[in-house]
Structures are given as structure tokens and as C-alpha cells.
């Protein structure tokens, strides 16, 4: 694993009495937690417990029914998680007609934040994810696991503080899962934060949130 040359600025993520609803049904109620640089939150729970809703809410796609989740920097300024976050959901955000390289170059341009540029190229990111051979293939030709790896490569191309990962291990083989775990560890080592919903253990030290569990 190549070490990233920088570490993220100091932030803390504060979720205060968060509540989310989906179709009128309360899924998450009164949830408060706090993460600092290098912390991870692993969310587990049965199907329909609200893992995806919570993650989409933290990423800013859903508005919270109550409460707030914000990033606060050292000066005390508040920022949204979305503006510093990478979201990896069930879809990869890749256009099937474009090659892996074209897709990644686009997301690198789109998601890079001012002052947080990465000098990594799409090829280098694909190499790091173990699929250098797919760079010039249209994404439509790739297997589910390869598509997943292409999708994950954008995490390396545009450094962002918070990784929000919804079932990141889906479609990955054992090697791919190991690779992802090491990427996550590396990110946490640089002072990043990870919020992941998962069924399988990620093998990292983390805060653990079980939705639907007895309080």
C-alpha cells in the first residue's frame, strides 16, 4: 500500500439526536454519536432496519426528520458531511458506455475539493485496486466485481475526509475484500473517517451501531 502523502485537517463529526423517516415510517430515532479523525463507525442491522436510509441521510441525500449531523473544524465552523464525503452506494456511478479511465477521470474532476488534489492517475488507482487491465475497456464489459473496484478507485483519486460506504464488500472476492480493508485502514491512518454499513465484519476497530438492536 502506498502511503498518501498528507493527512486530513482536524475535524470532528457530530450527530445530534438524528431521526430519519422513510415513507412515513420512523427508522432511526434519537441517534447521537461523535467521530474524530481516524474513527470509523460500522452500522449493522437486519434488512429494512434503516442502514441505507441512515447512510443516505448522512451523505445529505435525505433531509433529517429531526436533529443534525455536521462536520466541525478546529475553528468551530460547521460544514455538511456531503461537501467532504465520498458516498459509495449500491450503484457505482459509472457510465457503461465509457471506459473505466474516462469514468474515473470524470469523477476525479468532479469530486476533487480545492486544496485536496491527488496526483494519482486513474491508471495508478486501478492498479492499486488490482484491475489495471480494465482501464481502456468500456465499463459495460466488466464483471460486477471489476465494476465495484472501478467504483472504489475514485476514493483514491479525489481525497475526501469522510467515506460513506453502503455494503462496500458486495460483489468483491476475498482478495478484493482484503484490499478494501487495507484501503480503509490506510484512509483512517491519514486521519480520514469511515462510516460503513455492512453485514460482514470489516476487520477494523470501530464504533459499532446496531440498528434495531435493544438499546
Amino acid at each position: 500500500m502506498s502511503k498518501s502523502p498528507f493527512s486530513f485537517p482536524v475535524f470532528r463529526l457530530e450527530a445530534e439526536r438524528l431521526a430519519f423517516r422513510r415513507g412515513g415510517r420512523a427508522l432511526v430515532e434519537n441517534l447521537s454519536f461523535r467521530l474524530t479523525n481516524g474513527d470509523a463507525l460500522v452500522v449493522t442491522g437486519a434488512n429494512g432496519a434503516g442502514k441505507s436510509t441512515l447512510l443516505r441521510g448522512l451523505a445529505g441525500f435525505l433531509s433529517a426528520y429531526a436533529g443534525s449531523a455536521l462536520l466541525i473544524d478546529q475553528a468551530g465552523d460547521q460544514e455538511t458531511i456531503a461537501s467532504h464525503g465520498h458516498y459509495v452506494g449500491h450503484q457505482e456511478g459509472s457510465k457503461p458506455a465509457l471506459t473505466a479511465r474516462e469514468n474515473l477521470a470524470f469523477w476525479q474532476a468532479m469530486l476533487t475539493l480545492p486544496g485536496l488534489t491527488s496526483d494519482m492517475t486513474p491508471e495508478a488507482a486501478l492498479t492499486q485496486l488490482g484491475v489495471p487491465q480494465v482501464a481502456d475497456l468500456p465499463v459495460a464489459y466488466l464483471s460486477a466485481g471489476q465494476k465495484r473496484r472501478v467504483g472504489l478507485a475514485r476514493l483514491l483519486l479525489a481525497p475526501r475526509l469522510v467515506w460513506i460506504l453502503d455494503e462496500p464488500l458486495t460483489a468483491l472476492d476475498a482478495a478484493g475484500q482484503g484490499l478494501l480493508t487495507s484501503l480503509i485502514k490506510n484512509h483512517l491512518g491519514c486521519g480520514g473517517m469511515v462510516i460503513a454499513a455492512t453485514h460482514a465484519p470489516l476487520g477494523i476497530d470501530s464504533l459499532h451501531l446496531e440498528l434495531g438492536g435493544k438499546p
Partner: protein
Amino acid sequence: MSPSPLMALFSREIRVARRLGGGSTMGIIFFLILVTIVPFAIGPDLNLLSRIGPAILWIAALLATLLGLDRLFQADHEDGSLDLMLTSDTPLELIVLVKCLAHWVVTGLPLVIAAPLFGLMLALDPQALWAVTLSLLAGTPALALLGAIGAALTVTLRRGGLLMAILILPLAIPVLIFGVSAASASLSATTPFWPPFLILCALTLATLAAAPFAVAAALRHMSE
């Protein structure tokens, strides 16, 4: 090093459109077919055709513009791109504007360029050809932007195309009225070209300023 986000978005949109079914060719073929079937419906009387020709071209352009619009945001919603764009530093309103611009370059602009040719088939005189082409050039961006509102409202619907047309066609009436007025100006001595044309330009500019906000609001709410 890396290109600006909006330039990257624009070139991505153009690339995707070019690789998927040719992009502009489909719109032009559809345009051609609409122009072709009209004489079958109303008869090949050239006098009549030259009188209603500008209106036929405008209706054909309206339908051809709406044709590809339902996928404008839907494809991005389905493959997850829309979510990622929401986390981008670039305001969604600008993203919407660039996507509409790219869509117009791929589908609207070719129609404008093809309009004089199809106008010849409808026996328009040279002055009318100019009027139709200019009015389409000024009016089709407004159609694309209005259509984008419908596309955003139906972004989660699998068969949103028909609903989108129902929602948007009533809103497109002013553009159609002034577009056809300007385009038919040369047909009679009493109707001037400039007043309707300038109003058409004003409508396009107003849509350009307002529609991205409506589209972005719709996308934020509908993709929840």
C-alpha cells in the same frame, strides 16, 4: 492538471451521447419522419405546405427535443451518478445547466442545422427558411430547459416519458406561439418578424435563468 468539473461534465455528456445510438442522428431521423408524414396526412399541396411549413417544423422540433429528454437525469439516477453529483463541490444548478447545454448541442443544434433542408421539402421560400432557422436557434434551448424540469420531476419513474410530455407541453405553449409567429413572419406582409422573435429570445433567457433552480430543486427532492 485535472480539467474543470463543468468541462469534464460537458465532455462526458457528449461522449456518452455519441456512443449510445449516435445521439443526434436519432433526433434528426425523427425530425425527418415527422416532416415526411405531414404531407401524407394533409396532402401534397405545396401552397398549403409552404403556408403551414414553419408550424410543422416547430412542432417537429418540439417533439424531437422532448424525445430524448426523459433519460437526461434518469440514466444518472439509475447508475448512481446523480447521488455523486450531489456531493460535488459544484452547485447542482450549474451541473443541470451544463447537462442541458450538452443535451441541446447533441439534439437541438442538429435540428436547427437541418431545419433549412427540411424547410425546402415543405416549399418554404428563402426568407421563411431564415426565419424558421433563427427562431429554432433561439427557441430550442428554452424547450430543452423546460423539458429538463419534466425530466427531473419524473426522474424516478421507469416510464416517465409520457408523463413528462403531459407536464411539459402546456408550459411550452408560449415558446411555441412566439416561435411560430416569428417563423411565419415572412408569410404575410402584416406580421413582423422582430417583435415575436425578441419575445422568444426573452423567454429563452428567462428560462435559462429560472429553470436550473426548478430542475435542481426537483432533483434534490425527487431523488431522496
